[in-house]
């Protein structure tokens, strides 16, 4: 991975828009799922699959690949869409999400779809699995890295902190934890449901290096990932501030959209907003 030049940055932004559109179509077709978090992570998944990860979509089990563990499995539509765009499987398969017989399970399953790296959904377990993987890589002196993408809400799970203590104790510097700090969870804002702040200080107190970035700014996120790789004393946590429901005015920052999907006219309105970049451009599809 290297720094992003302007041309590449521009193309990544365009891919992220396509991924957002696919996420929305998938959720509408599925009839259920998690809209806000999935849309908020389109930029981060784009950055991973099109710039950060050392991977080969044609060889999902290539042993030297970087591993991206998704802990909050409910945002998997974003991962599936990015994987399809990267060439892991045909884009047409995206519309099978949550349907009987689909490899695109409602929450991702390792046994179903090569490349998803782990089964997840029940919160708080990804950080431990990522730490275990990173420990195995260190034992084997392997060069590949582990990235663990987690939600902010799942930091309320005690297991997360067990995993972070472990990562700090064993100096798992080959593992980078990324927090999708979108401030929402099912029943409201995280700070109302169960306050997480002061979050950065908590991570520091647990022996981790902390970086912050704007999670919907691909360049800012890539730079944070680059800085994390430079840190050789401690594992790094990146607090990526994102906008839940990003790209759709009536969803942005609304916790009500955590676990539901737009239906009927709402769905059409949402798609139009994505296609026009919230009215900034004229849609090609119109």
């Amino acid at each position: 991975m290297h720094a992003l030049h302007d041309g590449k940055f521009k193309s990544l932004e365009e891919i992220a828009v396509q991924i957002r559109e696919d996420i929305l179509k998938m959720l509408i077709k599925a009839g259920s799922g998690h809209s806000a978090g999935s849309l908020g992570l389109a930029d981060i998944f784009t950055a991973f699959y099109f710039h950060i990860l050392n991977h080969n979509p044609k060889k999902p089990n290539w042993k030297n690949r970087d591993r991206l563990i998704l802990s909050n499995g409910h945002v998997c539509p974003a991962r599936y869409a990015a994987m399809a765009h990267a060439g892991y499987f045909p884009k047409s398969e995206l519309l099978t999400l949550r349907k009987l017989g689909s490899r695109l399970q409602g929450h991702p399953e390792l046994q179903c779809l090569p490349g998803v790296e782990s089964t997840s959904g029940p919160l708080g377990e990804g950080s431990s699995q990522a730490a275990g993987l990173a420990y195995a890589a260190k034992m084997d002196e392997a060069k590949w890295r582990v990235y663990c993408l987690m939600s902010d809400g799942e930091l309320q799970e005690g297991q997360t902190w067990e995993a972070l203590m472990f990562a700090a104790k064993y100096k798992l510097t080959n593992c980078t934890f990324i927090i999708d700090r979108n401030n929402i969870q099912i029943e409201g804002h995280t700070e109302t449901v169960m306050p997480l702040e002061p979050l950065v200080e908590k991570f520091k107190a647990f022996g981790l290096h902390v970086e912050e970035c704007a999670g919907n700014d691909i360049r800012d996120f890539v730079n944070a990932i680059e800085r994390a790789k430079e840190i050789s004393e401690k594992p790094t946590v990146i607090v990526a501030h994102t906008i839940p429901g990003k790209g759709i005015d009536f969803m942005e920052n609304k916790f009500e959209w955590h676990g539901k999907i737009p239906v009927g006219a709402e769905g059409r309105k949402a798609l139009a907003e994505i296609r026009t970049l919230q009215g900034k451009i004229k849609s090609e599809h119109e």
Partner: protein
Amino acid sequence: MPFVLKEIPRLKYAATRDGFGLGLLEAAKKNKNIVVLSADLTESTRCLPFKEKFPERFIQLGVAEQSMASIAAGLALGGKIPFITSYAIFSPGRNWEQIRTCIALQNANVKIIGSHAGLNVGPDGATHQMLEDLALTRVLPGITILSPCDVAEAKKATLAAAKIKGPVYLRLAREASPIFTGSTTLFEVGRMQIFREGVAATIIATGPLVYEALKAAEILKIKDKLNVRVINCSTIKPLDKKTIIESAKKTGVIVTVEEHMVAGGLGSAVAEVVVANHPVPMEFVGIKDKFGESGKPQELLEKYGLTARYIVAAVIRTIARKNKK
């Protein structure tokens, strides 16, 4: 060679956890991918020799059984064969959902070692007496469950677990119990062993209580002139259905024996097979919907009705039910 309970003049005792410790060391010498995870119970789970011999493959997690199960799954994804070691009450007790999602559903090659299972942890009391672990693990698709009857079998079970590609739960006891099998006793995952032949009834037992079942058979023979078949069920899953059905047909009476809740344990597993294939009168020797308490292991086995005399009574009652038909 079939098992024969001989008169053992000086019966020796050891805990099944000791057999695990020996098996682990032997398996680890053969396979460098084996790693051991400890949640602050290295000595009492008998992992100390492994830690001393292979310090680079020993991972201390502190008191964090939930993370331990998931970290092990991650290690398995990275090609290792993790043995997660703790007391059964914490693993698979505390961390059941992590085992379900990260280990069973992913078919991760993780070995879950639950020591101190059953009432025999004695003075520690109900909080530490794991009586539900077979029920908890039996409902997980794809997992292998081993419950050895003595130290020698525990060693064999450990070696077998290391070779299985996939999740295994190994149930171990803290307390020393009779050593009554040896190097020539057959052990095969998924196969019950007939330790004593008979036609009047079948006793299917698991864990160290198999010895109580053999004592019960001896009493039944001497006092009641009844020859009963005694089966050691050291693989709870996959269950040896063939031997269960054959025993039901041959003896017409089945009594199960376990240091575990009757609900969901060996008895339930055997009953599912019997009811669906060849219904015969059954009775269940086990814990009857109660928590344990502090006491000496032998006192507790007596109080909770798990010793030979209770097995004898259950067999006689069940034979009477058969004869009434």
